[in-house]
């Protein structure tokens, strides 16, 4: 097991805990917390040396953030 894999798993656990039980129960906090496990998963993908998987995951993660931001904006304005 490489160091990236171990750190990625630790961050995945920390980020999942922060997402599931946020200190402020707001949408914005949850969206920002969602980026922490994404970085952990990125490190795990990095430890397996898959370039295409890395690039795809980075792009999809940002796309997900964009969709969630749009959704929360719409919910707040309505």
């Amino acid at each position, binding site marked *: 097991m490489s*160091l990236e894999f171990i750190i990625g798993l630790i*961050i995945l656990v920390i980020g999942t805990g922060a997402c599931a039980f946020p*200190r402020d129960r707001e949408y*914005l906090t949850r969206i*920002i917390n969602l980026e*922490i496990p994404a970085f952990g998963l990125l490190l795990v993908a990095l430890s397996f040396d898959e370039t295409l998987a890395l690039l795809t995951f*980075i792009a999809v*993660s940002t796309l997900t953030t964009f969709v969630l*931001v749009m959704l929360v904006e719409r919910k*707040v304005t309505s």
Partner: protein
Amino acid sequence: MNILPLVFGIIILTGSIFAGFARDPYAKLIAIGIIGGGIMPLIIMRGYVDVAAALAVIIPLSTIFVLQLCKKGAA
């Protein structure tokens, strides 16, 4: 033993713990910047400079999206 990955790992862990515990959204965004700052050298050390270039474009983009929501005070 190369000590640099360990240092970058400590930076990433510090950023993620700070992001998990901070209450202010702006502080959280700064902590995510710290995580990005730790991940970028790790990716480059593995030799994926193209992935690092893509990440350098995409991480600020994601921050900009969240900042839009911060500005409107959505909660």
